[in-house]
Structure formats: structure tokens, C-alpha cells
């Protein structure tokens, strides 16, 4: 059995966690429970008043329980974004 995540390894991914946060980084590995290794990661904090704030974080292990969505980032498109002009409501945490 191969997981669809194999093709994401060593690529830039965006992970949305169940507390509504958005982590961007290089996926270095994962396991059966979707625990993730994110290298050179940063968090994007969205707000309706100022542009997107990027918080540098570094090397992370994110526990699979909290992972809601993993998306592959197109780096060309991402580099063209002007984050300071993007305003958005922050996501709410998942309600269990």
C-alpha cells in the first residue's frame, strides 16, 4: 500500500491543522498515523486588518491527530504572491 503522500516528500507543502493554523514547509517524512516532519517551516497568520504575517519556526514534527489538510504548494505561484496585501479571516478550530 502506498500513501498518496509519497509524492509530496521533499516538496513544499501547506498543512492546515485542526486548531486552524497553517504551516508551510518542506515535507521530509511521514508515517502511518500521518505524523509529519516539516523542515524550514513557517506559520502564516491571517487577519482581516493587516496582511499575512509569516512566523519562522524551523524544524517541526506535527502529530497526525491534528492534521486536517496537506496540500502541495506550487512554489512559482507561491513566490508570486504578495502576502502583505492578502487579508482573510483566520480559520476556526475544528469542533469535535
Amino acid at each position, binding site marked *: 500500500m502506498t500513501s498518496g503522500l509519497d509524492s509530496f516528500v521533499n516538496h513544499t507543502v501547506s498543512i492546515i491543522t485542526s486548531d486552524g493554523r497553517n504551516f508551510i514547509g518542506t515535507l*521530509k517524512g511521514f508515517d502511518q498515523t500521518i505524523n509529519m516532519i516539516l523542515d524550514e517551516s513557517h506559520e502564516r497568520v491571517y487577519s482581516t486588518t493587516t496582511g499575512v504575517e509569516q512566523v519562522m519556526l*524551523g524544524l517541526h514534527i506535527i502529530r497526525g491527530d491534528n492534521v486536517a489538510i496537506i496540500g502541495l504548494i506550487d512554489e512559482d505561484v507561491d513566490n508570486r504572491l504578495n502576502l502583505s496585501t492578502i487579508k482573510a479571516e483566520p480559520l476556526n478550530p475544528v469542533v469535535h
Partner: protein
Amino acid sequence: MLPLSLLRTAQNHPMLVELKNGETYNGHLVSCDNWMNINLREVICTSRDGDKFWRMPECYIRGSTIKYLRIPDEVIDMVKEETVTKNKQSRDQKGGRGGQNQRNRPAARGNFGGRANKPGGQQKLFQKNKPTKLA
């Protein structure tokens, strides 16, 4: 690379652990297990709002309560070396006792249709650990 291999490599390094309830624990990783349960030394616990702090000489955190762990950047480079040497060992062992398939059977079950033949065989590392745990 498996997240738990990275965590194992991070032993004796400082780290930040955020729990699902928002509390954070800063300390040195003493030990961890396959369930991500961890032992920390010289811990500073910070409340969810970051307004209260507690110092404790050590603590034990149940893996299932963890949201994420922040680990020093250099630790990921140390894992790579370890993985390479372990893969070599498991390959050598396979060649050395070719006829002992019985003993390897629990491990073989986990090779996901032969994916372990891939060069980057983290699976092998995993398999190798399995019998050790059983024994």
C-alpha cells in the same frame, strides 16, 4: 524519514512541545517511545495564554496529547547518517542468515508489497526494529 526516528535522534536536545490544550513545554528530551510518549528534563511549562509559567525538574508527556514538537534544525542532519548505517546493517544481516525466513516473518508482513526494495528503504529500518520489540 520517519517522524519517530527524528524524535529518537533528538534525544538530549532542547525542544518545545505544544499540547493539544495549548500548553507548551520547553525542555531537554530524555527519552521517547513508539507512541510519542516523552520524558523531558529541566522543563518550563507555559499556560495556553502565555501568562503563567511553571518550572519543573522533569515531566512525562503522553504522546496522544501532543500537537507538535519543535526541534533544533541541526537534528535532521543527524538522522540521515543514522539511517544510512542502519540500512547497511539490515542488508548485511539479510545476506548473512538467508535461511532464517521464519524468524523474519513478522517483519516481512510489513513490507507493503515489496516497497522495501526501494533504495531509500526506511521501511527496512522499521522492520529491523519490529523483531527487536517483539523479542
